[in-house]
């Protein structure tokens, strides 16, 4: 395996291609806060959500 330390840990000598892609793609980074106003509290949520989604079955 080649030296991929920068790709793995973001430390050490930056790999040019990785660094270039990081700079380009950073604009897509997710920065939104959780829209808490729409969210029930965990305790009340359980009783309010009678129909389970597939992943919890």
């Amino acid at each position, binding site marked *: 395996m080649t030296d991929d330390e920068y790709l793995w840990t973001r430390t050490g000598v930056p790999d040019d291609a990785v660094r270039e892609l990081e700079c380009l793609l950073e*604009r*897509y980074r997710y920065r939104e806060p959780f829209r808490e106003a729409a969210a029930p509290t965990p305790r009340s949520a359980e009783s309010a959500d009678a129909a389970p989604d597939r992943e919890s079955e």
Partner: protein
Amino acid sequence: MLTRRRDVVSSLEHVVDTGALVRAAQGGDRAAFGELYALYAGMVHSIALARLGADDAADVVQEAFLRALRQLRRLRDVNAFGGWLAAIARNVIRDVQRLGCRRADADVEPAHRDTQHEDMQARTALRAIRALPAVYREPLLMRLVEGMTGPEIAHRTGLTPGSVRVNLHRGMKLLRRRLEAAGTRRRP
């Protein structure tokens, strides 16, 4: 051997007691749920961005966390939170795809003139990542878009550091080759 030991050490450095946060959130601690959101939103976003446009991917994050919050008390293995949340995210994505209610892909809309060239390069790179085999897409987006390290990706997803490292390495190699072949990146 040394590489494996480094993987273990690196992953330990990034361990957050997710189980404790999940237990607290299950007990109604909204701040704990907020910490889980801060830790895992990038992972969920990468999973969505691997399949959907940027606007839809952002909506998927919100919907996945809302569903997670509603179902959190049913999660028995608190240390499996990452995989459980990823499964919820994939269900949300399937719902979006099935309902055919996807919005125009904001990341292919015309960009501001000042950054038009870079935006075009970014869109090309994002498309190239989306065209990679599924196993490489998500870790590469977590690394290159969300800025997560390999050990953080392993910890969040529940995958082994070794498999994440291999997928990052192979995915990056393939991506580099394709971008060079497309003429968007010069050969070193």
